[in-house]
Structure formats: structure tokens, C-alpha cells
């Protein structure tokens, strides 16, 4: 087990380097970012040259990349064009996005799995059909439609919530955005759990558990659900990364100043340092989440071993 974890951590290194290099090159292809800093006019050449020197943009790309990576390993992610350290931006953006992701994941897990179990056990009944229909609708509606619609209804028409999230972005403010963010994944979790439960219901170990005379609740939670969760855990694991990086639309609609906001602004202003820094951290989140998922398999299914 220990060796497996070490091997996986080592495998992360080339993936990490490859991903950051790609991002770095992509951002650089967009051209010289300094030209966009002076509004609708030409930057005066002396100041532009000075700025390029300060941000290291006068060097060849490979050298820029090496310097950047060197700095990253000492915890220095560079400086954004507005003079703020990128680490400072991360320190304000990540807590907000993590809170949003937590809200979304909790909604996904609690509601999604509960609905999945209920429908999986009552396959073909009216409740199953109506939940399936509902998830189909949710999957087919894009996030920005759900987001804007809920914002307009709850925020403006009925006045239950504030249409935008304040600077503090507390958990209670993030419930509606979290729901919007979670909605599509929620539908997938429901469907995955449902199929998996329905399949395993007829398996031998469940029959054995029932024959042993175990109470129904224990059979479902301890034996049936635990073994049925493997595909669901895989999905949720990869979803964590997707939710953190892909919240741009939801964050824009509800004016949440998280990772999506910083990435969007970084891209629009061609701020290499911000974009590469944030994406680097997101890549790490993805890698770690994937590793955790693989390790969780062993926790869920005793038959799986890592050596």
C-alpha cells in the first residue's frame, strides 16, 4: 500500500510538468500582454520595455518557463499586473471556491445518493420514473440557464435571497449557487447510484446477508450501498476538480470572487502569472483527487488490494 502511494506520487511529477508547460505555452501564444495595459493607446516604448523586463517577458519562452518553475518550488507564484502577489490572490480566491465546492459536493452526495438508493430499490415504480424524468430535464438544461432563472426568481421576484454573494461568501449565501453548480452532477450521481444498486440487489452476497437474517437497513447500507458506491466515488472524485475549475459560469452569475473570477480576469488581461499559477494548483487538485479515489476503492471493496 505504502509503495503504491509513493509510486503514484512520483507519477504525478511528469503529469504536473507536462500540464504546466502546456498551459504556459498556450498563454504565451496569445501574444505580448503588455500592449493591453495602456488602454486604447500605444504604451510608451520605454515604460513597456521596463515592464517587460520586470515581468521577465523579454527572455525566450523556455527560459521564462524554467525561471517560473524554479520560483514555484520555492512558493513564489509571481506577481499579477495589478501589483498583487499571485499567492495573495490564491489566498483570497481558493477558500471561497472550496466553500462553494463543499456545498456542491454535500448536496450531490446527500441528495444524489439518497435519490439513487430510493429509485434503485423501487425500480420501475412511479417514483423511479418521475426521478428519472427530472434528472433528464436537469441534465439537458445548461448551468447558466438554471443559474439566471433561480437568481431572477429567488433574488428579484420573491426576494428570498440576495442575487449576488457578498465579499465574505458565507456558507449560507452559497447554498443557491452551490445547488446550481451541483445540479447536473447531482443528476448523474442519482443515475449512477440507481443502476449500481439495482444491479447489486440480485448479487449473491446480498442474498446471503438477507438469508443471515440481518435487518433490512443494515443490508442496504452496509452491504448493498457500500459495494455499489465505487462508480459513484469515481465520478465524484473527478468532479471535485471539475467543480473547482469549472465554476466560472456560476461564479460570474452570482458574482462570487473565487477561482473562476480570477481565471477569467487573468485570461481577459492575458496575465500569464495568474493563469498558470491557478491552473497549476487546479492540476494538483485533480491529481490528488484521483489518487484519493483510487485509494478509496480499497476502503469500499475489501477485495481490492494495492501492492
Amino acid at each position, binding site marked *: 500500500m505504502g509503495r503504491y502511494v509513493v509510486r503514484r*506520487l512520483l507519477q504525478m511529477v511528469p503529469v504536473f510538468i507536462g500540464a504546466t508547460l502546456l498551459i504556459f505555452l498556450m498563454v504565451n501564444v496569445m501574444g505580448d500582454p503588455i500592449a493591453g495595459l495602456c488602454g486604447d493607446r500605444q504604451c510608451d516604448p520605454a515604460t513597456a*520595455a*521596463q515592464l517587460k523586463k520586470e515581468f521577465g517577458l523579454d527572455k525566450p519562452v523556455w527560459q521564462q518557463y524554467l525561471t517560473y518553475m524554479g520560483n514555484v518550488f520555492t512558493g513564489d507564484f509571481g506577481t499579477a499586473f495589478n501589483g498583487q502577489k499571485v499567492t*495573495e490572490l490564491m489566498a483570497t480566491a481558493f477558500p471561497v471556491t472550496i466553500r462553494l465546492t463543499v456545498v456542491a459536493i454535500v448536496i450531490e452526495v446527500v441528495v444524489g445518493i439518497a435519490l439513487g438508493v430510493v429509485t434503485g430499490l423501487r425500480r420501475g415504480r412511479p417514483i423511479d420514473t418521475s426521478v428519472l424524468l427530472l434528472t433528464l430535464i436537469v441534465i439537458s438544461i445548461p448551468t447558466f440557464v438554471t443559474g439566471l432563472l433561480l437568481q431572477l426568481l429567488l433574488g*428579484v421576484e420573491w426576494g428570498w435571497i440576495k442575487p449576488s454573494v457578498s465579499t465574505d461568501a458565507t456558507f449560507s449565501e452559497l447554498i443557491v449557487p452551490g445547488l446550481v453548480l451541483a445540479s447536473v452532477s447531482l443528476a448523474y450521481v442519482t443515475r449512477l447510484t440507481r443502476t449500481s444498486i439495482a444491479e447489486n440487489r440480485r448479487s449473491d452476497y446480498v442474498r446471503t446477508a438477507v438469508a443471515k437474517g440481518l435487518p433490512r437497513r443494515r443490508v442496504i447500507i452496509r452491504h448493498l450501498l457500500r459495494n455499489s458506491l465505487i462508480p459513484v466515488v469515481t465520478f465524484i472524485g473527478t468532479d471535485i476538480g471539475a467543480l473547482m475549475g469549472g465554476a466560472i459560469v456560476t461564479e460570474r452569475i452570482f*458574482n462570487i470572487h473565487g477561482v473562476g473570477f480570477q481565471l477569467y480576469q487573468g485570461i481577459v488581461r492575458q496575465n500569464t502569472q495568474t493563469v498558470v499559477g491557478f491552473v497549476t494548483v487546479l492540476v*494538483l487538485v485533480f491529481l490528488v483527487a484521483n*489518487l484519493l479515489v483510487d485509494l478509496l476503492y480499497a476502503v469500499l471493496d475489501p477485495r481490492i488490494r494495492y501492492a
Partner: protein
Amino acid sequence: MRGATHAKWAACAAAVALAATACGSSGGSSSGGGDGSAVLSASWGDPQNPLEPANTNEVQGGKVLDMVFRGLKRYNAKTGKAEDMLADKIETTDSQNFTVTIKSGWKFSNGEAVTAKSFVDAWNYGASLKNNQKNAYFFGYIDGYDKVHPDSGSQSATTLSGLKVTGTDTFTIKLTQKFSTFPDTLGYAAYSPLPSTFFSDHAAWLKKPVGNGPYTIESYTKGSQMQLKKWDGYTNADKAQNGGVTLKVYTDNNTAYTDLMAGNLDLVDDIPASQLKNVKSDLGGRYINTPAGIIQTLAFPYYDKDWNKSGSEKVRQGLSMAINRDQITDTIFQKTRTPATDWTSPVLGTAGGFQDGLCGDSCKYDPTEAKKLVQEGGGLPGGQVKITYNADTGSHKEWVDAVCNSINNALGNDKACVGNPVGTFADFRNQIGQHKMTGPFRAGWQMDYPLIQNFLQPLYYTNASSNDGQWSNKDFDKLVDEANAETDTGKAIKLFQEAEGVVRDNMAAIPLWYQNGSAGYSDRLSNVALNPFSVPVYNEIKVG
């Protein structure tokens, strides 16, 4: 039990991997609510540059500077005229050497007195190359600028030789050339005075800028919001009529508008284009739409021989007459732009040099005449014009397509004009800077100060800083030089208008429309107005 061991390993792996990223986390401190009875909230955007006066060249940072600083002059929000603020008098006999006397009694909000040194130090800082100030070119008229800010190489001086402190409240300015309207440029934020703490503890100052204006900064959460409080120690007549302003950063102006509708925000100064149709029914009288000092034009690449030969001015005139400005401003911009009839802006006022109709027939829609002129001029270079624009911001695509449609219809040729989008603004500016344009390109000009000089010299003077198309005309240059040397303002403006006539006769750039500033506000507010820079006049807003 085996499950527990596995879980432990999983947690361990996570800890190792996360420690490697070394991302510290300390939540931004901010005091959330607490909006008293007289504090208003307003929409804001994250400033692009650090909030230094000589480094702020866009409107979001400009909003803060306008509240926190007062300079020698200030532009009247209604007339756009430069009026004395800190300046007691600015005297000159030759339009080149100026003596400035400032009023005594002005203080920064940290108690430090505003003296002549506060100005001279600030200007020297702004001009110096090593400080990377993006507005440094503002000090380019002052003697010694080429030493502190050379075009290439390192600077040989740290202070401008043209600035001398001659007393606590007086200093002298020596310019490199005659420039009679120079005192009127001093209302721009780049000329603000700075307290000594700006230089002694720069990092702390940037966290919480200190100035001499009617507001002080209470708290500033970068990228999110800024709370400004009325400064009780401010004694001048233009003190704040409200208790304070909370500026909230919005990523999307649609959200800001929704917040205004829900009563969660008091003032939105950027109405989203998609809402312009509903704004009157949504807000009634609480919507303002006033001219701002912005003109949109189509510039041409004069470094390209095809656009710089005899007869090509007829092609440009023809193109100008092929554009149905009225229709485009009505349908696409919902009257938030006004068809242009000269190369300046209505905010200057007729006394300031704006001349309605100076462009004459060349800016009127006339398809038959347009077609004739293009043919007389030798037809379109290469048989087609491509209008280059950046597609990432604004609604540039919409109007460029509309302009092309209008041209195609007028010339009776489906392929006479096409749009040529460039992905990002930075790349667009890059291509312009490298002289890669092959046809007309989008050019917007937001004035630095409300003077006719600012609409002409930087854009059309030979090798001027924003003369992106490299247009050059001896007559124009001569008239501008004469105008700058003329001490009588009225005569100077006449000369500038003559110079503008040269621009018209050559159709150096096609004027499209004047841009308006628009804003909407909640029913808690009254006395809301936008100044000629389309920044709300915060200090005059009344709450409740």
C-alpha cells in the same frame, strides 16, 4: 479495521501532495455589512493597475482617485471647464514658464499639509522611468523629461529639471515648448499631490491609499470591495453629501444590474447592452445617459502605400458616406451613442472647440455619392476593406458587422467590406503597434482632459503617441504648433479647429459616433450625475 488503515494512507497521501503546493491561506479580512443610513453602494471593476495616480489609466481606478484626491484644477462635472481647486493662481507671460501658487490650508487625511513639494515630488515620481508609471507621458511637456524618461537606455536624472520648488506654496514649471492651455490639463488625476508616506512606506500606502480629497479609504479588500468614508476634516465646498461609498467589484455587469433591480445595490454606472431596451421601463427616471468625452473612429494604416496615395482620401470619404450612423446608433446602441459630426466631443462645448457639423456632407449617409467617390478614388485597395477590431470586449463585433453591411449595401457589393476580429485586446494593440494593419481598424479615444488639443495632437500630429496609423500632414502640424503657442484661448481654439479642417479634408480617420456614459440608480439616491469622463460624481449624491 482494514478500512481504517487504508483511509489513513489516503489522508497521508493528500497531506504530502498538498504540502508540495505550498499555497498559504489566510482569508481576506473584511467587515461585511454595516451600511449606515447614508452610505451608498456602487458597482465597480477590479482596477487593472496599482492605485497610484500616475499609474491609473482606466475608469475603475479613476473612480477611486476622483474621490480620494483633489489636484490643482478640477473639471466641472457639467461644463467640463477646468476650475481652480488647490491652485490659487497659475501665471505665465510666455506660455512656456509657469508659476504655480497653491492655496494654503489644504491637508492630506493623515494630517500632513499639502505643499508645493507634495506636487513636485509626485510629478517627479510619475515621470521617472524606474517607477513604471503608465501615465508618465503626461509629464512629457515638462523640461528634462527626456533625461528621466528616455525612449531607450537608462535614465540619467531622477527629477525633472523643469520643476522647481520656490516656496512652501509656490513652484515653477518650465515646458519644452509653448503650450498655452497647459494649466487646463492639470485637472487630470496623474497630477495629484502625494503625501510623504507614499514615498517612505510605499507598500502600506498601496494597501490603503491616503489623499487629500473628500473621502478616506476605510477598508480595501483587493479584487472585491472598497469602503470609502466621508472625511470630516475636508473643508472645501465640494465635501461629500453622503456618509460614504461602498464600491463592490462585479465580474459581470448583468449581475450588477440584477442587484440594482433587487434593491441590493444603489448605483450601476455600466448598463449591460442587453438591458438597454428595458432600462427605461425598469428604472423610469432613474436612468441617465449623458455624453462622455469618448469618440469612436476608424483609423487607417498610412504606412501601407495603398492607403497613402493620391485619391485615397476620396475612397475614405466615400466609405464615411456609406455608413448609416443614425441607424446603427439607434438599433445597436439604443441611442447611447450619438452620430459624430466632427473629430472632438460634445462635452467640450462650443466654447471649448466642439463644432457640430464640421465634418459636413462627408459624415452624412449618401449611398450614391459614396459609390461615386470610391470609384473616383480608384476603388477599394485590393477590392475589399477589412475592418480590424478586438472581439473580446464591448459589442465591437455587432457594430463592425453593421458598418460593413451598410458599406456593402451602399457600394452594391456583398464583399466590399468584412470584419477582421482579433482574439484579445492585447493582441489587437500588438498588431497595431507592429504596423500590421492592412485596412481600417477600430480606434477609440477617451480624452485625458477636456481640451480640443487632446482630441487632435496625440492622434494626428506627426509621430504623436497615439497616432497609430502614422498619418502625417505638414499643414496640420503647423496649425497645431501655432495654436499651442497662442496665448489667447479663443484664438488658440480657432487654430485647432482649422487644424481639424485639415483632418476633415484628408479624412485622416472616419468619425463614427460619440459615446455616452450611462448609469442607473435606486430610489434611495438623488442628484446623481456623470462627469465628462463618465465617472459618477459621488460626492454630490444624496442618499435617502
